[in-house]
């Protein structure tokens, strides 16, 4: 029997809500539409709530964690982006990242919507592990944090000046240094990326007897880790500040996206155990 249902039907609704949130956050970029603040946050929260409901509903329906297929993982990524953004908005009173975050979550849901295979598939033996949920969730929160960091990098390239806040944020600051914010997001994402990578190594050892086999997906996970490790070290090299670092952050996220979605173009991916088919 088919094991998909309400969560699939809700995809266009979630997409519409995230798109509306993006529109509202977009209006906030102009000082004439300050009143859009609350509707924007509400729409983003509603989008997150529905998105979260999709995952919980699917989890309950299929009786297994819904993180196996590309469709399922895209729903999870959208949730992670929305959560990370809303936490940032709550802590830093910063809505300038709302537009890219809502667009990012919306684009992710749109890509999920375009997937032909939306059905749940059975978990193979290797995925029936206690590592499955933490490994995937930690990685996707890492991706979300890095996405927000990349959005900050793009904003920094457009407008490097600090952003003045209407009122103090929860850290007591009245202005946000976008470059510093970008670095903080990347740092946080890097911690999660490292944790996810190392959890994967532990898991692979338990499942197959090898913690590392140079599988293309594993190797690209290492590539993203190395790029961000280079980013974090570059900050201490003379001449590597500001715009250059922002570009490296964007390159790093391109590596993340390639690791996540681009593996199928690699000639070595055929033998991969980890590639979304």
């Amino acid at each position, binding site marked *: *029997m*088919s094991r998909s249902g309400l969560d699939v039907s809700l995809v266009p609704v979630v997409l519409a809500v995230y798109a509306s949130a993006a529109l509202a956050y977009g209006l906030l970029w102009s000082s004439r539409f300050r009143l859009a603040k609350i509707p924007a946050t509400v729409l983003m929260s509603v989008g997150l709530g529905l998105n979260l409901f999709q995952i919980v509903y699917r989890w309950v329906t299929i009786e297994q964690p819904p993180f196996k297929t590309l469709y399922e993982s895209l729903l999870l990524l959208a949730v992670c982006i929305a959560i990370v953004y809303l936490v940032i908005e709550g802590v830093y009173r910063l809505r300038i990242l709302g537009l890219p975050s809502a667009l990012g979550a919306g684009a992710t849901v749109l890509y999920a919507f375009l997937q*032909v*295979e939306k*059905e749940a*598939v*059975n978990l*193979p*033996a*290797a995925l*029936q*592990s206690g590592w499955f949920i933490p490994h995937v969730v930690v990685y996707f929160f890492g991706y979300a944090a890095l996405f927000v960091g990349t959005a900050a990098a793009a904003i920094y390239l457009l407008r490097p000046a600090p952003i003045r806040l209407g009122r103090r944020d929860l*850290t*007591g*600051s009245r202005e946000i*240094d976008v*470059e*510093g914010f970008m*670095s*903080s997001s990347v*740092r*946080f994402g*890097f*911690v999660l990326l*490292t*944790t996810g990578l*190392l959890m994967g*190594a*532990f*898991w692979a*050892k*338990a*499942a*197959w*007897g*090898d*913690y*590392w086999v*140079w599988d*293309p997906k594993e*190797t*690209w996970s*290492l*590539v993203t880790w*190395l*790029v961000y*490790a*280079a980013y974090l*070290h*570059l*900050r*201490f*090299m*003379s001449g590597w500040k500001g715009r250059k670092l922002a570009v490296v952050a964007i390159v790093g996220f391109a590596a993340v996206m390639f690791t996540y979605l681009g593996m199928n173009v*690699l*000639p*070595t*991916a055929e033998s991969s155990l980890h590639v979304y088919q």
Partner: protein
Amino acid sequence: MTRSAMKTGSERPSYHTVNVIIGIHAATYALAIALQHVVTGTSGDDAGRVRMLSVACGLLAFAGVAGGAVIRKSIFKAIASTDFGVVSLVTLTLLSILGTVILQNQPGAVFTSTYGSLSGVLAFLFVDDLFHSFAFSAIVGLAAGALTATLFKRKKLTARRLGVIGAHLGCLLCLAGAAVGSVWGVKGRLKMHVNEEASSFKVLGDDGKMAEVPLGYTVRLDEFELLHYEPEFRLRIFDIDEDGEDLVRSIDPLAENAPGELRTYGVAMNGYWPDHAMQLEVEPADPGAAQQAALPAVGLKRVRSDNGMMWLFDEGQPGGGRLDAGDAGVLAFFWQAARAEKLLDEIEAGGGGGSPHVLVAGAARLEVALGKSYSIEGFEGLVKVLSVYRDFVIDPETKRPSERSNAANNPAMEVEILDSGGHSIGQRWLFAKFPSFGHKDKAPGPEMRYEYRGQGTAFSKGLLLVGETGEAWTIEDAALAGKSSFKDERTVTIGGQEFVVAALHESAVASHLHVSRSDEALNPVVEIEIKGEQAPRFMGAGQAVEIGDGRVLALTPKGDDVRDFLSTVTVLEEGKPVLTRKVEVNSPLSFGGFSLYQSEYDPRDPTFSGFEVVRDPGLFSVYAGLVLMMLAVGHVMLVVPVMNRLRKRRSGGAGEGGK
């Protein structure tokens, strides 16, 4: 580590430039390639030895930078610098990407056919096994040297530096553990069958041949379980072009909207049976109607059995045949006593059999045998019988044809069409109960169908039922053992089994109904009609048909349905069991220095189990490194910024990150 602490002009050695550092990496890479050529030759050596020497090359590069750092303080500062670390990171990044873009560990012929003239250059640079090349190890060695130098850069250990030290030390521990594992670790395969014992396993030796490595104890495979999910099938529509196939739609044939979805692609779905079977319906022929293929028929039932009616049709008529009744032997039926007498004569003369497989082509009826070729009137070539199945099904695991049971539920025959020169020009599947299957295949050859007449190539035992007299002739040891009446539902006994004749028609019409024996998708069949075609088609598991517009419709398994595979293993020492436990994926057995990982199963052999056997003396170091890295990265990235913020608040000055 703050920016002010890192960058003081007086600390910078005179040659501390990024270009020099890049030059060091490039030279090391080139030297390592040259060294690999000298040690192993371009043709390569055996994999095990190359890997070991590769680790040695990494250690050599590490020793080189470490030695330089010890000899001169300026070299130490250069190696411990962030610049050196970044160059090492970038180099490793680029090499890692290269290793995913270029095929790895492929046979020479594959490599050559893929990369053509470039393959020689790639092989010369050892890019074809990049991650085990001397050059890659040498760069890792340089990076390890930089990590080590960083650890000694600052003597004062502070709470803020704990994370930096831990992260770098964690990386070093992982690399050290990996190196130890590569050199002294053992990895091999152990393949067993249930109730087998093994005291050793096979590994690929340094000489490239398989070698036996003793475990130091004995393992016995007590039990093996291969667990499945309930099988499911999907109707999938693919766009086919020269670049390959793209999935357009995946439809659950059991879903209510499946016919509607298929209709949008010009396909009408008439029915779907997850566990398909044909059910025979026999009714007396209507004398007033324009008769189709009516023939005499008798319906038997086993006494004290819930099985349905068994129908036998006059063996002398087209479409008639025998039944295999197991211990009861063969059941055959003639309406006319004279025809039965003739068969009896043949039986008693040692014949009376013939092949149960009949190939019908036009007016010809050929009793065929497996592996033999036959000429068909009107066709210049030959038809060769490749395989026959009594209860054909596509095995969901192997995706290959197989027997579902011993009963003749779905007889099928695979034939090969040979031209007049004896060359194969195509193959075709013929299904006794689905004459329309395979007829529209593109394989050339004559029109033909397959009839299955039941078992009993040698009719030495069984019942010969005669319709016009209402008698059952008992055959034993290829001779008539007796005659009895089966009228009025009298019991007839043969081979310890009792039958009654429940129906007898001199002229009956048979029809086959499609039914599903269960809800499980064990033998899925879908009936479809494609726009522009006159007759419906029946598709079984794994079959595909063109539906126009460059599209193909296929009935395919939804996905892998193996849920788990697990072995019950007993460890024996000096013949005595010391430990029994289940080994499954994600739950290995560790004993006596070796770990057994469940790795293989054979869907065709339920008693087979395969294990990966691993001994990795570097594992503890790797694990310690991984844990240390996780903690340290968290400390550097999350704890230190908080410490900075608190310090900033206390001092009122600027902290890290410019906040």
